[in-house]
């Protein structure tokens, strides 16, 4: 689809906004619908859009698979480590009350951190999965459809 100028320009404009929206969903999940998972999917969608328009090879240069392969496990680890940290502080596993001096703050910190971990993993895994599919074949041409 590289020759569709309109598409390229529009998406170039859109992609930053999609990612921004993803970040909003990520960190505003406490207040409105959304959270790590939805945010992760949105950001991944932005990356996938980029890959579709500009080609997987170029996408891989921007979003390096090696980096994604680090981010995916790190997201899970962030979540799990919050649990361990609470445990080390004296609470039960994942007991956010122990993350800060006061329970409510602790809960907020906990929720935001784990949601971040979820978002990281989802973004990375979704992108990786897409790249794996895409890496399996030649570039997708219009004629394919």
């Amino acid at each position, binding site marked *: 689809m590289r020759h569709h100028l309109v598409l390229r320009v529009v998406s170039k404009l859109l992609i930053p906004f999609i990612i921004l929206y993803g970040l909003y969903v990520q960190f505003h999940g406490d207040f409105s619908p959304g959270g790590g998972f939805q945010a992760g999917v949105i950001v991944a969608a932005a990356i996938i859009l980029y890959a579709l328009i500009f080609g997987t090879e170029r996408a891989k240069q921007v979003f390096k698979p090696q980096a994604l392969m680090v981010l995916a496990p790190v997201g899970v680890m962030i979540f799990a480590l919050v649990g361990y940290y609470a445990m080390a502080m004296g609470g039960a596993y994942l007991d956010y009350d122990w993350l800060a001096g006061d329970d409510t703050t602790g809960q907020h910190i906990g929720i935001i951190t784990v949601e971040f971990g979820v978002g990281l993993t*989802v973004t990375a895994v979704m992108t990786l*999965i897409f790249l794996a*599919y895409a890496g399996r074949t030649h570039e997708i041409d219009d004629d394919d459809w």
Partner: protein
Amino acid sequence: MLELILAKYNYWIVIVLMMAGLYVVVARGNLVKKIIGLNVFQTSVFLLYISMGKVAGGTAPILTGKDEVFSNPIPHVLILTAIVVGIATTALGLALVVRIREAYSTIEEDEIDEAESLDMTADLAERRR
């Protein structure tokens, strides 16, 4: 009677949808179609769950400060998890389909069965040698 229908119609339609999905899974021989069927099946189950949490006249479970009637948030939480599980399964299933296509040059169940019985004969022939 009407009351019964009004009380349950949502469940019934959702159940029919679920069964349509399940039918595709069981009856269709195309591997991609099966995955699509699974998706329809699971999505309908999500609807069933959410339906049971609905409260007439309720709102989305987001605290706004006013004393409102909320729909049951627990099914929402569960289904969020289930959706994630669903996409994970779909991704893995489709990856398998891609590999199957590469290995067998087909994604139709009957043709794969044929190829596998050929594999079996080849195995035996090799041992006879």
